[in-house]
Each structure stands twice: as C-alpha cells, then as structure tokens.
C-alpha cells in the first residue's frame, strides 16, 4: 500500500506548481465535471440533497503539492435529502403514528414539525432528523406508543462533519422494535461550540454505555446522563479521538533502508 514519498517528493519539490488552489466554497454553481454525485442524486429523484462538505481534486495525494493537474476540481459531498411522501414500506405508517402521538401529547398542534426536522428515506432505511431539544419526547413516544413500540435502542454512534457549519457533531441512534420487527434511525446534531444533546438513558437504560462511548470519542455531552465519564480511553485522556481533526498518530516503519510512513501520512485517495 505504501509508496516512498520521501525520496520522490524530495526530487520533485522544486518543480512543484506554486499556484495555490482556489479556496473551498459551498457555491455549487461553479463546479466542473463534478457533479457525478449531484447528477446521480437528481436522477434518483432526490431533489434536495444536503451538502456536508466538499472534495478537492480527483485522485492522488491530498497533502503536499498537486502533481495531477486535477487539484482544482471541487466536488460537493451530498447526502440524501428529505424524502417526499409517500415514503413506502412501513415508513408512512410509522411517521403518521409518531405525528399523532407527538401532537396529541403537547399543546402545540405542530409539535411533530418542530421536532422532526427532516425525514430521509434512503437505501430502504428510515432516518428521522430530530431537533435536539425534542429528542427526549420523541424517544419516549417511540418507545411507549403501542403502535410504535421501539423497545430497544441498539446503540449510539457519533459522526463528525467538521464542514457542516452549526451541525458538526451528529449522534445517531438505531432503534429496534421487536414487537413490530421494525427499525428506525434517529439523527441528532449539535454544533461544536455547544456540543450538548439530551440523554436518552431515562428512556432506554441500555444506552448508558453507548452514550459514554460517544462522549469519549466525540465529546458530545449527553445532558441528564447519570455518570457521563470516559469509558474506553483513560480518564485523563486529552481530546476526543474519533473527531476528524484528531490525528491518527503512528510512527514511520523502516525496513531495509526504505521508510513506510504512518497511515495518516501515506498517499491517500479522495
């Protein structure tokens, strides 16, 4: 897997093009051949994909000088956007029941619209993007309503999107209903500047360690968690290792005069 960039880059360094690549932008009007993802998304009927970042270049190393000539290429990273009704499968019934449950519960009749920011149906899976302040009520409704009955939260998984301004940290909950044999995914986001999300341990005690792991790895503070401490890393560990800006680390390996750089410094393809 490794090349030997040390000698090569040393030779080529003087010839490297000095032009700085253009600044990244979210304006997708000026994209080049690019938008394979966008085209594919449009073709699939997904008219409102969500951009969570941008990819630079086409192939070759992401660090160091661009020797490919494709360094100016910018491709948006598009995630599936909101789906339109009917969603298909059991998704319509599920969202309908949840809407009834949420709206009858509170005083406002638009509680559902306020709580569920986006309903995404992709690859046969249903994702509900939940506003973080509404997570406890949504979770409780999903667990307790007889027609929903998601009695198990099979895990909490964090995802870090450093380029999605104001929504950098995502906590993803996978729920399982054994009663109805269904699954649903809840996705909650929080900005890096205020990384707090309400805890669901009161609803699903089994989420205890999963939330601790997500705190440990991503630094998401689950408010209301009974004992939010590190679980996998040592108690005094600095930083949250699964964040994208946290380096992988590693040391170069030498073998018979050749040097294999650590994994995060090797040539990577984007």
């Amino acid at each position, binding site marked *: *897997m490794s090349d030997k960039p040390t000698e090569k880059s040393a030779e080529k360094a003087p010839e490297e093009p000095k032009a700085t690549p253009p600044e990244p932008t979210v304006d997708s009007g000026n994209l080049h051949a690019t938008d394979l993802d966008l085209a594919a998304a449009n073709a699939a009927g997904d008219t409102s994909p969500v951009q969570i970042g941008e990819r630079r270049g086409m192939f070759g190393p992401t660090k160091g000088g661009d020797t490919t000539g494709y360094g100016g290429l910018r491709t948006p990273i598009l995630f599936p956007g909101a789906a339109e009704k009917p969603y298909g499968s059991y998704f319509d019934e599920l969202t309908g029941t949840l809407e009834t449950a949420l709206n009858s519960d509170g005083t406002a009749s638009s509680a559902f619209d306020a709580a569920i920011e986006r309903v995404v149906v992709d690859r046969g899976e249903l994702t509900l993007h939940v506003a973080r302040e509404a997570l406890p009520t949504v979770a409780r409704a999903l667990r307790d309503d007889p027609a929903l009955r998601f009695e198990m939260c099979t895990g909490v998984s964090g995802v*870090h999107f450093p380029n999605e301004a104001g929504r950098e940290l995502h906590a993803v909950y996978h729920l399982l209903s*054994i009663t109805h044999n269904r699954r649903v995914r809840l996705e909650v986001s929080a900005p890096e500047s205020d990384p707090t999300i309400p805890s669901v341990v009161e609803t699903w005690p089994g989420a205890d360690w*999963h939330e601790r792991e997500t705190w440990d790895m991503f630094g998401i503070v689950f408010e209301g968690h009974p004992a939010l401490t590190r679980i996998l890393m040592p108690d005094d560990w600095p930083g949250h290792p699964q964040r994208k800006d946290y380096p992988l680390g590693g040391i170069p390996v030498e073998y018979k005069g050749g040097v294999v750089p650590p994994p995060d410094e090797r040539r990577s393809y984007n």
Partner: protein
Amino acid sequence: MATQKNAADTVYEDIPADQQSPGLHSALGDGQADPYATTDADREEGARVFNASGGDWGDLVDEATALHEERIVVNMGPQHPSTHGVLRLILELDGETVTEARAGIGYLHTGIEKNMEFRNWVQGVTFCTRMDYLTPMFQEATYCLGIERLLGIEDQIPERASIIRVLMMELTRINSHLVCLGTGGMELGATTVMTVGFRERERILRIFEAVTGLRMNNAYIRPGGVAQDLPHGCLDLVSSTVGELRKGLRELELLLNENPILKGRTVNVGYLDLAGCMALGITGPMLRSTGLPHDLRKSQPYCGYETYDFEVVTRTNADAYDRIRIRLDEMYQSLRIVEQCVERLKKVNGPVMIEDKKIAWPAQLSVGSDGQGNSLDHIREIMGTSMESLIHHFKLVTEGFRVPAGQAYVAVESPKGELGCHVVSDGGTRPYRAHFRDPSFNNLQAVAALSEGGQVADVIVAVASIDPVMGGVDR
C-alpha cells in the same frame, strides 16, 4: 453540566513531601525520586491546584465516614484469569455478598474504528475481523453487508458466495460457543470441559485454515462476495467434521447437562428477566433464556437465512444454566445449517464474487511454488498482454472503489447477540465512519443486575454467562 458548578466544593490537598509512595522513596532503589511527587514548585503561591471533583465522590466519602464500617472494595481484574481477558470488575463486598458491582472496560481499546477511516473499504475487513476475535466472520459479514447496501448491490451477490458466508458464520458460531462453554467450565474448575471444548474447536479452525489460510482474523468475507472459492475437497472435510463435532458435543452434554456441581453453581444464578433484558438492550442467548424467541436470522434474515431450516432455541428460567443449555442446543442447530450449506454447495456452482469488475478484485489467489499469491495467469496477462488490466488492478487494489455518500446500518445475529455495523460514506474510497455495535459491549452493562446481591463466586458464573470478549467490547 451540573458537575462543573460544584467544581470548587471538594478540594483534595496534595500529600506532604515526607509521605511519598514508599516504593519510590529516594532511599530505596536507584535513588530516583518519584517523578510525580509533590515538589517545592507545587507549594509556591499561584501553583496549579488540581481539584478532584465531579461525579459523586463527595457523597461517597461522606457515606463511608458516616457508616464507620469496613467497606471492602475489590478490584477483580483487569488481570484476572476468569474475567475473559482484561475486564475489570469493581466489587463492593459485605462478607461474601456482593453489594455493588461495576465493570470497568477500555483496557483493550485499540482504536480499530479510527484506523478503518484511514484504509480503503476492502482493507477495513482486515481490521474489523480483529474486534471480537472469536467471531471474526460476523464482523466481516456485517461490515460487508453494510458496504453492499451503500453500494446498492445487495441483490447482485452470487448465491454461492452467500452460501459460503452462511457456512462460515455458522461454523464460527459453534467455535464461539465452544470457547464460551470451555472457558466457562474452566472458571468453575472443570478442566475437562475446557479440553473437550478446545479439542472440538480445533476441528473448526482446521476448516478455516483450509479455506482462508488463517485460523483466526480471516479477512475472508469481502465486499461483493468472499475472497476465494472453497478449496478442493473442502466439502468432504466439512461433512466429516460435522460428524465428529456431533460426537464431541454429545460428550460435552453428558459432562454438563445433569452435572450436579454445574447445576449447583449455575441454576438460578445470574438471573435477568425479560423486562431487565429489554431495558438494558440485551440480545442473544441471554434474551432467549427468558423465553423470547428473538433471532435476527429469523426476524430480519440476511444472506438467505430464510431459506434454511433451523429452530430458534429458547428456555424460560433466565439463569446461567439455561444460557449454557441454549448455547449447546444452538450448536446442534448450527450443525443442521452447515449440513444444508454443504448440500447446496454441491449443487450451486459459479462465481463467489460480484460480476462488477469495479468492485471485485481482478485476481483469484492461488498457491504457487513460492507460496500464496495472485494466480500466474493473471500476472501473465497484466504484465505481458494488457496494460489497461495492469492499471485497473493497480488502481483497484491501492486506491479502492468509491462508495456513494450515505449511511447504512446492518445487523446480524452473532453468537453473542445483535452485532450491528453503522457505515457512513462521504463518497470516497475510505469509510468516513464505521461504528460497530458489539453485543458484548452492550450486554456487559448487565453485570450489576446479574451479580449484585449474590456471592462473589457467582460473579464469575454471571460474567461467563454473558460471554463477553474484550476485543469486541473495547474495539
């Protein structure tokens, strides 16, 4: 956070200089002082003061002083032979009775999930196979099924590949259960159970070695299919092994099922009812020991499990003894599936990797005079005939394939419960995030519920009945 507001409440003074750790006293050893001890610089004005605060430490100290009783807190592990690797159990004892039990984990954290983000999609298989090292095929399968869902190629996987996957997974299930019973027996003092269990496991490892070249950490299941077809004569080996395993399992049953010592140690020990299992998200044999026939192979089938004939084993006493019996019976069910796989593999021929040449690696491996490697025909083609093939081979193996942006969660029924993989792609050649929901990680939360109020010796039985593997718990 509420804990931050109380930060100033509890201040612990540093220990005086003359009460340093005796083991590091300057008069002893090489004369090196304790590098972490309090120095004069620490006592100056404006020196940094470390406050040990947060959590309920203050309450704990107050409680301990108010009680005026001797509280014995025992650290069982992380280096304890009967805690399945490096599990640390923190037990508060009142005589022989456990009043509080907590599990401390993280001693085997190796950052596999982070590492996977720096390798391409195919290379990720070699990482996730090392998580729960007793169930490598299951991590590989769930990870590959996740990638296949992201790629939208779930229905293009060749039938033979799916059958081989099922065959390997069921053999792995027997393998994992045998180790669970074997080590569990050894923890109770029954050495013969361990030797029988590991003897039978060896037969399965021999099959794995014949098929994948490795006994563990196989990296055999790949996105799009499996790495290579079964070798010549493998089905005969599997068939004969099934017979031998039946005999060995019978031996285990005779040793265990009505053994008065085993029953005395396990019946009504480690009890967790259905409500407890549901609340804690417990799956696998523990959940089935409460009578609920929840098995993802039946309820949400994958790899064609709906076409196999087998039963979900349940019992109703919800104790450690029932979990042992469930594992024994499940191994017989797995043997049934293995036999069906062998029958099918005799009839179904064809590729074991997806047709799409943008995903499948171009060469099948073969054994040459200098060991295992790419087949000679393929080398001849890429080096002598087709430069495009060479480029394609190089690009696919070094750069890898791209996976469209999005996320998927696929769960399989591992021997320990629901093993799920949440894969997120940003459209690149490497996983943006791969998170594994390991059943042991979740099920270990039940340690407190299983062992509080029981005897110290029962803690071992309770933990063994969870069957945690720390490689999977800590990842």
